[in-house]
């Protein structure tokens, strides 16, 4: 789960990480009031959406008067930002963070990740602040400093000092840097985050270290024990189909193709997408119905997949272990009947109770296309979808 920048900064403040004075607002009038309250000569108005690259998209701007802050806030709130992470449709901005602007002397990067190779939380730092860390890692990997944290003792002062020295944070900045790193670590640990970063961590003209931008991402599996973090979830930032799927215990991710997919198991779901792609088709989604799927759950899966208007047909690929093919088949029939589905449905069933499942499909009046294996299923799906596209295309060109 991701949260907004202003929420991350609020959290970090509680752990002693210094952030610029500022507040989140929903209207231009509030923006002006906040600018006046926090004081200063210049203010930054920052669009609050779950995406990087907001600056380049025009979502982060500086105002030099209260009036200017109001005008900028008015322009940003309600606008749609298109960044490299939002896709072409962009994201509606519902609120902005108004902060005192800082005079930056130098920028650094400080982050924490769960390193899969060492199975530990790892502190990552770089003197190249304000740049995406992935870019630094690719172009100048030697400029990235890493320190592995032993969970039994946590991040130690000397580790922070080592890292601070290596990136060049010395003198009076050293104790400040230690405090920031330890605060970031405690915030990650105590809230079950899976990623936390301050980028940039800036030295400003007063000689202070300030977290000018920060990002955190949380472990969905730990939200049950982090009620305060759960409350920070913003459903407006998520695909409604994905939210609905989660509510039904399904795993759904929208993609940009036209072959709808209903599969059991994450690995098989990815493999099904791969097979479709290798046959020249494009999957419309990833969907895992999970184990022990009831007919209702299968019917819900249809409902979610069909909300995507691009879907031209549906491929169902089930290899039942703890699932049952007869339940799956019953769910398919239920969806066909209740949701009045007209598009081609390709079904591949294997594993537990496969004969019963096929019998249920055959006994129905619906014209299912039964595939014998994964390859067959993908090949048929791609042929069928191409036929539909061919049939539709000439109609569109006909003069009215």
């Amino acid at each position, binding site marked *: 789960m991701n949260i907004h920048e202003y929420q991350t900064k609020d959290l970090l403040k509680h752990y002693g990480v210094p952030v610029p004075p500022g507040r989140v607002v929903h209207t231009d009038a509030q923006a002006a009031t906040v600018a006046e309250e926090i004081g200063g000569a210049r203010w930054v108005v920052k669009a609050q959406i779950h995406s990087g690259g907001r600056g380049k998209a025009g979502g982060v701007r500086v105002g030099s008067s209260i009036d200017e802050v109001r005008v900028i806030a008015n322009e940003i709130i309600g606008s749609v930002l298109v960044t490299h*992470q939002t896709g072409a449709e962009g994201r509606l901005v519902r609120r902005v963070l108004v902060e005192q602007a800082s005079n930056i002397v130098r920028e650094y990067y400080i982050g924490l990740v*769960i390193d*899969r*190779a060492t*199975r*530990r*939380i790892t502190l990552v730092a770089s003197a190249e602040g304000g740049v995406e860390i*992935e870019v630094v*890692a*690719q172009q100048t990997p030697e400029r990235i400093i890493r320190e592995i944290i*032993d*969970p*039994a003792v946590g991040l130690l002062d000397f580790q922070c000092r080592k890292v601070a020295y290596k990136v060049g944070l010395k003198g009076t900045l050293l104790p400040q840097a230690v405090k920031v790193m330890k605060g970031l670590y405690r915030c990650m*640990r105590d809230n*079950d985050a*899976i990623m936390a970063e301050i980028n940039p961590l800036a030295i400003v003209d007063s000689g202070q270290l300030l977290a000018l931008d920060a990002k955190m991402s949380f*472990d*969905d*599996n*730990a939200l*049950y*024990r982090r009620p305060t973090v759960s409350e920070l979830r913003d459903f407006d930032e998520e695909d409604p189909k994905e939210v609905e799927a989660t509510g039904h215990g399904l*795993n759904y*991710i929208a*993609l940009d193709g036209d072959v709808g997919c209903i*599969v*059991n*198991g*994450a*690995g*098989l*779901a*990815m*493999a*099904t*997408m*791969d*097979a*479709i*792609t*290798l046959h020249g088709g*494009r*999957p419309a989604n*990833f969907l*895992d119905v999970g*184990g022990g799927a009831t007919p209702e759950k299968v019917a819900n899966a249809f409902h979610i997949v069909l909300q995507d208007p691009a879907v031209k047909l549906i491929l169902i690929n089930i*290899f*039942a*272990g*703890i699932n049952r093919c007869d339940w799956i088949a019953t769910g398919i029939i239920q969806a066909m009947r209740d949701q009045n589905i007209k598009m081609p449905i390709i079904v591949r069933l*294997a*594993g*537990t109770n496969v004969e019963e499942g096929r019998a249920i499909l055959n006994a129905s009046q619906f014209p299912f296309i039964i595939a014998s*294996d*994964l*390859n067959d299923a*993908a090949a048929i799906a791609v042929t069928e979808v191409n036929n539909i596209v061919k049939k539709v295309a000439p109609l569109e060109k006909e003069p009215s």
Partner: protein
Amino acid sequence: MSVFLNKDSRVIFQGFTGQHATFHAEEAMKIGTNVTGGVTPGKGGTQHLGLPVFDTVEEAVRETGADVSGIFAPPPFAADAIMEAIDAGIKTIVVIADGIPVQDMVRVERYRLGTNSIIIGPNTPGIITPGVGKVGIMPSHIYSPGRVGIVSRSGTLNYEAVAQMSDLGLGQSSSIGIGGDPVNGTDFATVLKAFEDDPDTDAVLMIGEIGGPQEVDAARWAKKNMRKPLICYVAGLSAPPGRRMGHAGAIISSESDTATAKIDTIEALGMFVVRNPADIGATVLRAIK
């Protein structure tokens, strides 16, 4: 012989009397798994499925000589159950739970350091050694005794591979699910080593997916240390970056996390690679010949 679970293994289940553990313990016993009892705190001294129930793993180990444990505790309680099994000296710990907080697994892995325990999972269908037994939730009827070892992150994709192999008359020595989580107890390379050392295994099929470095790390290990053929498939060619594809660990965070990058690197290391998941069985057959 076969790896991690063999004819000498003595198995217990933690969370034994729960609904899932009961069902899967019965299934395991049906195919001959040597189940010796189980643990449910508070129910010690009773019998379940005709076997003794203990309050603690320590007691179960002392009384039954168990060296393998299948943990069916739900995610919030799984880390504690794993550490209890480690403390009691269990050698192979199979963790079925999907949804254990990742920082719990970071702590568990720290606790495991310096012990002889191996954790299979979490978020795994488990281990099966056809003809000997299973500790897990996989449908045992699709597996058959043979000489190919399988190790995978995904459960259903493992089943898919087994079905393709069965069509070609290929069976399995053991099949190990290492699980779909970002921090898992046992990585691919550890399982490859076990298969390399196993006289009953002739070749190994490794089924990976997007996210993390471990497929490539394992292939590098294999190039240096393995004499048996290794066949690899990596799922998620068409997965978008930055999205978690069902498994907590299946996420592309950098270029090297993609299926294409992994499979290209593994191919360059000289391993057999499968690009179309429908060709898994055929590629295994080709590698053996």
